């Protein structure tokens, strides 16, 4: 067997998997901008203790509704102004970022884990079980998602934790459908058959053979539902069903300040802007991830 020599010697020069991923990802300029923005936001949230000039809940009664520094009446003590209770907006936004990212993370983890498990089961299960699971998911999907989350929170009682659970439940069917479709697509492939011929039992087939090959679309979905989760939590917070005051959560901040919208634009605009930038950057990044991970879109 001398015939393998040339081929082997040159194989390592091919760009690695990560390099290839990066190449596809970086082709999408929006995705790169999104990634940097998101990275900076995460860094800011992590360093909130160091950067924030004040505590998020400390009230400066003598400086309520102070405008940002560049407006008349602003001061460097409160760079982005204060809210109606005299709390520093910048500090609240920074600490709020923590909540938002935490919420996004937890919701995605819960929804993805549950969704992937159910999707795998549905993909491998006999037809009746598959039908039961999928119809259940259809029922969840047929409700307007925010309404369903509202109902769930109303039943469980308003708190940030319950809001996260409710949003996870609402987002889960997307994962189930996605995983099931990918599993059914992969299940008939030759490599799965050869694993079966090798004697692989169902759990091994599910988790070791098939699941890693279904992950690409799920990762994209995770990135996109991360922003969904942040939005939904903000919406629930705005409706008073999420994080409770004085938690510096962005949606709750919006809700608390909405009566002052005419007098003090910054109390409403700044949290709104924070939500917008975060969601936008994550969505841009998700687009890039799809370009890089979805083999169907891959160009040779």
């Amino acid at each position, binding site marked *: *067997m001398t015939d*393998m020599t040339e081929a082997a010697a040159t194989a390592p020069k091919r760009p690695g998997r990560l390099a290839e991923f990066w190449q596809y990802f970086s082709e999408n300029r929006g995705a790169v901008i999104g990634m940097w923005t998101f990275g900076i936001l995460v860094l800011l949230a992590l360093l909130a203790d160091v950067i924030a000039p004040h505590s998020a809940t400390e009230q400066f009664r003598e400086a309520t509704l102070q405008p940002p520094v560049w407006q008349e009446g602003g001061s460097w003590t409160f760079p982005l102004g204060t809210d109606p209770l005299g709390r520093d907006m910048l500090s609240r936004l920074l600490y709020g970022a923590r909540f938002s990212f935490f919420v996004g993370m937890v919701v995605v983890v819960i929804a993805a884990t549950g969704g992937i498990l159910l999707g795998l089961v549905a993909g491998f299960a006999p037809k009746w079980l598959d039908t039961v699971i999928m119809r259940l998911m259809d029922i969840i999907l047929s409700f307007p998602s925010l309404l369903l989350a509202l109902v769930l929170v109303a039943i469980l009682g308003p708190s940030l934790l319950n809001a996260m659970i409710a949003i996870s439940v609402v987002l889960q069917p997307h994962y189930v459908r996605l995983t099931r479709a990918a599993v059914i697509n992969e299940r008939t492939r030759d490599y799965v058959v050869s694993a079966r011929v090798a004697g692989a039992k169902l759990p091994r087939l599910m988790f070791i053979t098939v699941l890693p090959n279904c992950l690409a679309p799920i990762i994209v979905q995770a990135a996109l539902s991360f922003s969904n989760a942040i939005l939904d939590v903000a919406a629930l917070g705005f409706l008073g069903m999420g994080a409770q005051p004085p938690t510096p959560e962005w949606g709750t901040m919006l809700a608390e300040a909405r009566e002052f919208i005419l007098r003090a634009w910054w109390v409403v605009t700044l949290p709104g802007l924070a939500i917008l930038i975060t969601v936008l950057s994550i969505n841009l990044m998700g687009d890039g991830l799809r370009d890089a991970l979805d083999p169907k879109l891959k160009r040779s």
Partner: protein
Amino acid sequence: MTQPVVTARNLSRHYESGGGMFSQRQVVRALSEASFSIDPGKTLAVVGESGCGKSTLARLITLIEEPTAGEFTICGTPGVPENWDSLRSQVQIVFQDPYGSLNLRHRVGSIIEEPLKIKRPDMPAAERASKAREMMEMVGLRPEHYDRFPHMFSGGQRQRIAIARALILEPKLLVLDEPVSALDLSIQSQVLNLLLDLQERMELAYLFISHDLSVVRHVADDVVVMYLGRPVERGSKEAVFGAPRHPYTVALLSATPSADPTRHRNRIKLEGELPSPLDIPAGCPFAPRCWKAQDRCRTERPELGDAAHAAACFYPEGTETA
């Protein structure tokens, strides 16, 4: 007389399709009454066009599906679901598409070791790895390939990986489902030589499924020609290629282009297309396309019989050659 590695008797597999609320239930006869046996170190080739049931046969023999009728034994043990677990290490498969048959998320080493991991969970990891490396050397892969992912390999090399995985449990029977059809000509000969080497070295029996008659002519000892789920001719390679008896075999041989521009033959032109397996004609399945078909062929089905060189035809070709 050695015991055959596999014997099959009247193997059939029917699928039911449709049968929903509004559609009538239909039966697809993917495979009907296939009988054969393979001795150790021998190659039985199954030849036929798409829809002839050769892949279904592969799925039955590799214990992926149960036959709906008939029986088969592997190394003397009946291939019934109770025995599947113990038989798994006796029979392995290599697929046509070297790109779809390897898990792209696993490294070459762990792909090759997977059957060991499943069948011999108590084997120490180091022993497993050394066995995998041994196997890689045997199929002509280099040691540094162990940690690579399959996407870094060409089709021929991937097929070597697939062969290594199939052989690591030291099976007695290897089902080769079009193992070289997806490969380039120059690579095809490498893989065919490898398969022949391994067969000699390990006394492997091959069930070689192919539509390429020139490859079959090269590797097979015995040949079964299938048409629409039924074996229509069975015999030694010399007999089937030298003196084909079923008209379909004759037509198939004649339709295969030969790489010799000076040989201009009168090709037998088959009319029409393969009938749908949902709607197999009564009588001889080949009758609608056969140029010799008589009334009897359209009403009565010829049986294959047990002769060494048998053809399921009422009016087999005599000694004439294609």
